[in-house]
């Protein structure tokens, strides 16, 4: 394997990790506030569809972005009303959102475009194009570091850099601001927040809406940057992989970046080497494709050490009698 191939895999890893990272940070906000969200997948899918549709109609990726984020926020609000206002079961609300998004996107796409559940392919300004970072061209001539900068770091869509910046931003909000302190507290012991005179409902809604916003970016990226349009089930379980990464990262922002990069790397390997020839045996492509999912199962089965979720996670807050 030469250096160019390694760079190509790393570049792919970053591209593929980006939607996972957005979704993982989305889940981080929600779960740190004590609201479990397995509806990340559904929100991503809805956002991908809405952004692809509006970008196709308007010809602007930015209009698509607004539409995608909007769709995800609507579903987040539904999750909030079901699990915070009405104190419903958070897992069931999430499952319902996933089903709703999976069915509705294809149905509406077929009804509007009659392309078999797809949206028209996006071209030009309807997609987020790759951006060359400053000095990428000149730096490319510097040995080793140069090509890495030019080919791996530079040349991604804007949303990739947004995702990368979202990691320190999340860390700073969570651990350096009043809002972050309260958010973490409400996921650990909502009664402490309530008796301190702060609204539990308000905090949890804020967290769920931030989750919706980030999920929206994940979906928008899928349809308008990584892909070029919406296809049926295009989120492909990324919402669930993001949840696994979140557990792997133990609900912390920087490890979340590491965990999603690992998954992105595996997906990039699978894309580049459909059949991995190890000399002795040839690993079938199905196995390589399944690797991220196998890793997900391994992580969820708890083979990576003890992960302690926020203590009030999944439990609707009811004042005790």
């Amino acid at each position: 394997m030469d250096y160019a191939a390694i760079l190509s895999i790393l570049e792919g890893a970053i591209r593929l990790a980006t939607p996972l990272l957005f979704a993982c940070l989305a889940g981080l906000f929600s779960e740190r506030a004590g609201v479990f969200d397995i509806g990340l997948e559904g929100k991503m899918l809805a956002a991908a569809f809405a952004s692809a549709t509006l970008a196709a109609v308007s010809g602007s990726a930015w209009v698509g972005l607004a539409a995608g984020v909007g769709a995800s926020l609507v579903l987040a609000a539904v999750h909030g009303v079901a699990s915070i206002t009405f104190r419903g079961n958070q897992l069931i609300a999430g499952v319902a959102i996933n089903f709703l998004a999976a069915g509705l996107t294809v149905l509406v796409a077929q009804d509007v475009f009659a392309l078999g559940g797809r949206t028209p392919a996006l071209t030009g300004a309807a997609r987020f194009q790759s951006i060359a970072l400053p000095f990428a061209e000149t730096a490319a001539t510097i040995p080793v570091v140069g090509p890495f900068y030019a080919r791996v770091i530079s040349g991604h869509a804007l949303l990739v850099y947004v995702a990368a910046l979202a990691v320190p931003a999340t860390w700073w909000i969570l651990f350096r601001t009043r809002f972050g302190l309260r958010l973490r507290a409400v996921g650990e012991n909502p009664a402490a927040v309530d008796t301190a005179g702060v609204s539990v409902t308000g905090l949890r809604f804020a967290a769920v809406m931030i989750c919706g916003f980030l999920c929206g970016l994940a979906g928008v990226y899928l349809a308008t940057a990584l892909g070029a349009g919406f296809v049926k089930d295009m989120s492909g379980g990324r919402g669930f992989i993001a949840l696994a990464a979140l557990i792997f990262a133990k609900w912390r922002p920087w490890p979340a970046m590491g965990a999603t990069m690992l998954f992105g790397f595996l997906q990039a390997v699978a894309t580049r080497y459909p059949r991995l020839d190890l000399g002795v045996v040839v690993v079938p492509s199905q196995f390589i494709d399944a690797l991220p999912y196998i890793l997900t199962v391994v992580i969820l089965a708890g083979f990576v050490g003890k992960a302690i979720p926020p203590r009030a996670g999944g439990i609707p807050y009811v004042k005790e009698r």
Partner: protein
Amino acid sequence: MEAGRATSGPGGRPDTAAPAIELRGISKAFGPVQANRAISVRVARGTIHGIVGENGAGKSTLMSILYGFYRADEGEILINGARVAIPDSEAAIRAGIGMVFQHFKLVENFTVLENIILGAEEGRLLAPSLARAREELARLARDYELQVEPDAVIEELSVGHQQRVEILKALYRKADILILDEPTGVLTPAEADHLFRILANLRAEGKTIVLITHKLREIMAATDSVSVMRRGEMVATLRTADTSPEELAELMVGRKVLLEVEKAPATPGRPVLEIDDLRVTDRKGVERLKGISLAVRAGEILGIAGVAGNGQSELLEVLGGYARGRGRVRMNGAEIDLSGRHADGQTRRAAGIAHVPEDRQRLGLIMDFAAWENIAFGYHHDSLYQRGALLMDNRRIREDARGKLGRFDVRPPDPWLAAKRFSGGNQQKLVLAREIERSPDLLLVGQPTRGVDIGAIEFIHRRLIALRDAGKAILLVSVELDEILSLADRIAVMFDGRIMGERLPEATDERELGLMMAGVVPGAEREAG
């Protein structure tokens, strides 16, 4: 309101200003249950005011209304003479009210400082708030003996220190009125003494303190005035100096109660239970029992005193047959299996051991099941309850249950009622009826009167004494020293998984036992004979 003897200006202090707290006609219902009924009370500034009453008398509800945790259906609240609306805790904090709940409202994996500033931060960033809180904490520690490490994580602190954090939280929010709900339930006697010193310091600074407790001794020792609640009503407000524990108990229950347990001296016989070097290691690999050796003889009550969490629960669990241990335990001379492979609750019962667990709602009863079903649990293999090889004789069980409910004064005596519909005291009587009526050779009983009304406590204590007098052995675990001192014929004190020593109740006192509970053996050479 039918007040016994209403007073104003309690504690002998001049009542120049308006009372710090005045409640007028507060009522609150939860569905059909009237938790508070037209409550009126005045608390003078700069005093410690006690509120006593049985479980379910409405004390905690009343204070939760004052703190904005619940909203009153009717009535008004005046703070320093001005009427205030307290729709939520934020409003209560603004009115200068702070509350220390019985179950602390702390974020366990946050530091002390983070817990203190939560909800009272200045500005959007944390750093300035944390710095200011650190200074303020140092000042409060100096002024009120409230030392606590600001950077310690809550879950690593002792319960007594966690409570200090709760008090500090209230003071940091500039509370002038501090409400404490059952503050000493989880403290060692020494920690409780320290708490009362802190409260006295606060009173000296002009703060007003409301102390909710069911321990009459604390009321007598610490308060200036006291209100008694019964069944949602305020039945009396008295000057503490003018009343007595007997009078308060009578007001609480509505009839005369015996605070002292009457019992004849024990006549211990042969050893029934012999424990030799019992050790228990929990799932995390922490040794919870570090070599316990004890013996309980027929016709005696051995009381195990200690602060909760020092291995008493593990001792009961391993003897009751649902935890593993190492060492030797003999019951009536025959060794019982501790490995968990050949033994469970069933074989323990067959060996003559009955168990009234500490947590009756989790281990003693199935809360959603009817009383008659709960009466049969654990003994459901009894041939008395069987019909043929496969079926249970439910009618027989119900008949049996009706008799047991009647004999143990369980109210209402309805075998069809689900366990969760009974009050705490009646749930406990249900469990006791099931276990005691089997006439076991050994009764293990944990916290028999936790969450139980005074009236029921009296009944339960008499039943335990009667079982002892019938020549049975009883191992009593309780965190209530008063209970241990009045019931036990011999007292063993547990600390950190070890027995600190044995004492005879007539030859010791609360001070000595309290020191032993904290891990100190005063005059180590003095041992009970």
